[in-house]
């Protein structure tokens, strides 16, 4: 192969599996490109990603495309760059670190705004909103919440709950149940990732609340959200385009290695998914 690349994703959820598959498709379509893959074990596996960066450098890759799980993998990337490896970030940036050849991302903050704008369109001032956060401390997931709040754009809703779910369905159900118990007249729930959104849908169903009484907005369009949308319990979600993100990221990396100029920010975009346009996103 002409170029050997490393492709590192965060942790085992479908989103990153989709990215990996897209990269594999890219490699298959471009015979000169060889890609080796790595993945962290969990949403907080910083040390795992660092070890992957190091061992890929050891194996002599010319470039690494990575979805950094945490800003603090930067110094490992610095070392790789110092030894002549090109780096492309995907999914999210590393604030204050500008040595990447390019960043291919859905801006999570902007994507969160999309959800916020949707909520603004269906809620009125003074309504209650519960938030199911993702993994506490992970910037990309925090951005989704911050962006949503920004997207509400001046509409004053009352945030009656913010709990972490570790992006799991189990905790999503429990936390949503407790939200509904504490606030029987809850108007809306926003979940920062897919599994807890599906969990919240189930909690609403279990509580015997009519599907149209609570506005449920999720993120990721995965992991059971499709069924929830179909059933009418979930009202909307935000989809990213992981395959596109991966393809663009790897492509930018290959071009950067061959000396071409690449744009430093590549936005793969995000879009609002509702029952009506759902079929376009599968």
């Amino acid at each position, binding site marked *: 192969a002409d170029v050997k690349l490393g492709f590192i994703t965060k942790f*085992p959820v479908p989103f990153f599996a989709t990215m990996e598959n897209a990269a594999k498709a890219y490699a298959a379509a471009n015979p000169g490109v060889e890609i080796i893959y790595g993945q962290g074990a969990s949403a907080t596996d910083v040390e795992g990603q660092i070890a992957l960066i190091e061992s890929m450098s050891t194996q002599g890759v010319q470039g690494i495309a990575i979805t950094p799980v945490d800003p603090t993998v930067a110094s490992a990337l610095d070392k790789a760059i110092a030894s002549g490896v090109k780096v492309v970030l995907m999914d999210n940036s590393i604030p204050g670190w500008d040595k990447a050849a390019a960043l291919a991302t859905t801006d999570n903050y902007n994507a969160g705004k999309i959800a916020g704008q949707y909520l603004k369109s269906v809620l009125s001032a003074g309504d209650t909103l519960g938030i199911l956060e993702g993994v506490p401390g992970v910037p990309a997931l925090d951005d989704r919440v911050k962006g949503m709040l920004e997207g509400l754009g001046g509409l004053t809703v009352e945030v009656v709950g913010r709990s972490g779910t570790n992006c799991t369905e189990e905790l999503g*159900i429990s936390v949503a149940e407790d939200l509904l118990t504490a606030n029987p007249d809850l108007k809306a729930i926003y979940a920062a990732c897919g599994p807890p959104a599906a969990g919240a849908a*189930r909690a609403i169903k279990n509580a015997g609340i009519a599907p149209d009484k609570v506005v449920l907005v999720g993120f990721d369009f*995965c992991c*059971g959200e499709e069924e929830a949308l179909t059933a009418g319990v979930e009202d909307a979600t935000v989809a990213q385009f992981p395959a596109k993100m991966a393809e663009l990221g790897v492509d930018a990396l290959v071009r950067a290695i061959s000396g071409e100029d690449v744009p430093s920010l590549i936005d793969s975009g995000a879009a609002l998914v509702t029952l009506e346009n759902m079929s376009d996103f599968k």
Partner: protein
Amino acid sequence: MKEGQVDARFRGGSPDMRKGAEKGHAAGLSVALTFLSAGPVIILIALVVILTFSVPNFFTPRNISNILAQIAVIAVVALGQHLVILTRGIDLSVGANLALATVLGALMYRVTDTAFVVMATMLLAGAAVGAVNGLVYVYGRLPHPFIITLATLSIARGLALELSIGHTTMRGMPATITVIGGGTSFAVPNSFFVVLAVAALMFVIARYMVWGRWIYAVGGQPDAARRMGIPVNQVIVSTYLISGLCCGVGAILLSGRTEAGSPLYGNLLELDTIAAVIIGGASFLGGRGHLGHALVGAVMIGVIRNALNLLNVNLYFQLIAIGVIIVMAVESDVLRNHLEARMRVKQAGTQG
């Protein structure tokens, strides 16, 4: 730790011991003692009373029902974990085991929608991982079950991820399973009845069956058990098998509740279940402790989490609060134990 403490702990541990001294005597003391000797349960009751008055919506039928549904999985798996801990062991693999079982169940659902077959798959999967734990530990003559159950944690999680189609949540479960895991009867979650049934079965085994007696004997003094002709190896293997089976039951409950199987389920379940067992008042010493402890501990964890959610406590502060409350709960039980021991001395004194 302290020698004097041993007495108190033993007394706390064994319901049998209490009967001895309870005949006649100063009524007040006696009432207080009966109350105190109820063990960790009274800490739980105290907690519930406090929360009822301080947390709005806490003591409502709907919320109670929610709590019961939320703790069902932890409770069932903690019961199995307790058996393992009774034999001085530990089972770190429970969470991954449960995840693998739900994935296999979901795969089986793609083949057939007969609820029985899907349930059997999950139970078998759980038991199989448990059996591997027990067999490798005992016949591999490993120094401690920590290693093998840590290994199966890793292996089962890997397998579950590998097997789950698209490495993700797999939707769909037979209706019966959904009813068991997610339905309610008389406003009480069905899963709670499953917990009760498993607990009752375990209680009968532990208390009235030869095999249960052997578990206590093996936990109490493994060497002596061997010398008394108890099949120590088989007993130990059986506890891991049962723990695995409980993971299978937990898998049925969870996948019924979520109508799905997922390789990500059961994250950190090992810490939750061990904590439940220990909070409930069991001991790592082996051979000591009542199975009810595990239930009490699981309910306590569930109640605390639920109350913090109801109170809209900020996420990070929840982590801090859970830590503090758990220590306080255990510490109150320690103090309760001391109080009980002291009152017992006093009572004996009044009897002359």
